């Protein structure tokens, strides 16, 4: 079962194994690297970035407390508001499209289709390549004014435009890129479909249920935990998109800030301007937003996710 299923089960208090002999000493030794990582690399920095959010810090002079200044500044920061909008559009548009493509293909590929392994590989490969700088370089070319897309359109007599240099379509090219990487969730859907016992379908068939009814009454409910899992993970993942926007826009988030992802703005503030206090406050806002989305997802899951345990 997935990490999310595990968390949900723990939340409902039905998991875990207690009792038996405790091995605190051995456990401590085996977990020593992990504890150190928690302290210095993950949990520690979360706390530190919270505290830094209330300071002014440029990495050279020691940080000085400035109260709520950073948060007040956020309210009037037009580029931040723009970045939030760009990121929300990216998440809200690309994740459903990506998951719809993943689910559709998983359903098409299910159940003893000839050449399944070939198709699965072909559709999965882009999700391994998609986060690389090389693919971003390629995207810059194919959606450029003289790029591959316009060359193909020209064959049909359609005149294209500079998709990346036009602020109204630049974000769209990045959404296409995210949808292109539907292979990873597709593989998870395929694994989920395989766990649905065939006898359910056989029983439904003998009872005279058609394909569509079977899909609605068997496949969808039994697959809903996997849909939920993919939804949560892909949303979290999409909020963190950085590389493609950075390379396509040359680090600026342009044209006219139309590809200024939240993470890109955070990078500019923190690592181009060394405005570390403000960047920490931004990082915390990102954490709160992602946590809120995840919490809403978990809450909404009550209404549509079916658990059989």
């Amino acid at each position: 079962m997935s990490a999310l299923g595990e968390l949900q089960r723990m939340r409902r208090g039905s998991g875990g194994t207690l009792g038996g002999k405790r091995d605190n000493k051995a456990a401590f030794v085996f977990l020593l690297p992990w504890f150190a990582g928690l302290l210095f690399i993950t949990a520690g920095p979360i706390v530190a970035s919270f505290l830094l959010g209330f300071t002014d810090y440029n990495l050279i002079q020691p940080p000085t407390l400035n109260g709520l200044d950073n948060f007040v500044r956020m309210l009037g920061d037009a580029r931040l508001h723009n970045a939030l909008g760009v990121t929300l559009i990216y998440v809200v548009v690309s994740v459903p499209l990506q998951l719809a493509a993943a689910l559709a293909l998983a359903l098409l590929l299910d159940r003893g289709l000839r050449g399944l392994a070939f198709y699965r590989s072909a559709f999965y490969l882009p999700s391994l390549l998609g986060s690389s700088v090389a693919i971003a370089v390629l995207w810059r070319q194919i959606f450029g004014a003289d790029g591959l897309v316009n060359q193909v359109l020209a064959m049909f007599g359609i005149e294209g435009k500079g998709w990346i240099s036009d602020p109204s379509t630049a974000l769209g090219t990045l959404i296409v890129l995210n949808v292109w990487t539907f292979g990873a969730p597709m593989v998870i859907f395929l694994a989920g479909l395989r766990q649905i016992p065939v006898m359910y379908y056989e029983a439904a068939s003998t009872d005279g249920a058609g394909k569509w009814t079977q899909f609605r009454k068997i496949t969808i409910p039994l697959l809903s935990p996997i849909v939920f899992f993919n939804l949560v993970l892909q949303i979290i993942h999409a909020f963190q998109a950085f590389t493609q926007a950075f390379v396509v826009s040359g680090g600026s988030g342009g044209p006219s800030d139309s590809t200024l992802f939240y993470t890109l703005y955070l990078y500019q503030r923190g690592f181009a301007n060394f405005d570390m206090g403000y960047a920490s406050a931004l990082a915390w806002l990102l954490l709160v937003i992602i946590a809120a989305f995840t919490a809403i997802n978990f809450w909404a899951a009550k209404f549509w996710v079916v658990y059989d345990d």
Partner: protein
Amino acid sequence: MMTDLARKALKHAGLVLLALVMLYPVLWMVVSSLRPDNEIFRRPGLILDSLQTHNYGEGWTALASPFGHYLANSAILVLACIIGNLVSCSMAAYAFARLEFTGKRLWFAIMLGTLMLPIHVIIVPQYILFSQLDWVNTFLPLVVPKFLATDAFFVFLMVQFIRGLPRELDEAARIDGAGHPRIFLRIILPLMLPALATTVIFTFIWTWNDFFSQLIYLTDPEMYTVPVALRSFVDATVSTSWGSMFAMSVVSLAPVFLAFLVGQRYLIRGIATTGGK
């Protein structure tokens, strides 16, 4: 049953067409890297008139160091990260899967929580810490976290795998007087080779592709890895040679593609059981 056959054929035709559309840009980049520069903006097809390899020679030497230098940097980094993940994640996973200890549920929940933690939230304090240790422009900020089991994805993957191994094996070894280090090294580790293989391949691909943290920690051109070098290439050659940029992009994707060919089985199993990125 002619219609059934026709429907099947149609389905395959559709799937092949979709696969082709999806992979076309990548194939076209490979072909274009073997063409003269001026053809890249004129020829959407895949047929090569002649095989021109000069883009590769030009791209290889276009930056301050030959491209092989960046490939070597990336290879060293990837190797160190793989070792770190194998050692630290397997130790943590053994504890979570096989040992009982105080607060286990809480620690395990925290570990799962870090699985979903965006790196951007911790990067600023991390950067401050590493710059105070004078580690910027070394591989240490990228490698040390891997030795501290911070890739929770792999800890979880291995926990799942170890849970599936029969406990009788541990019990038998314990009756023979083996302690935990011995059970871990002699029994569990050899049995979890498939999970370790998955870890190797994912760590390879993710570290090879990772851009954000390498961009932040490696600013000295001597220390550039492939993604950072490729990106500086883009900035340096805004109007000039797409051919050589494509050539080096192909070079940078080739190892990922090879890892995919070799380790497909482990990748797909890993992603199916834990639901990776």
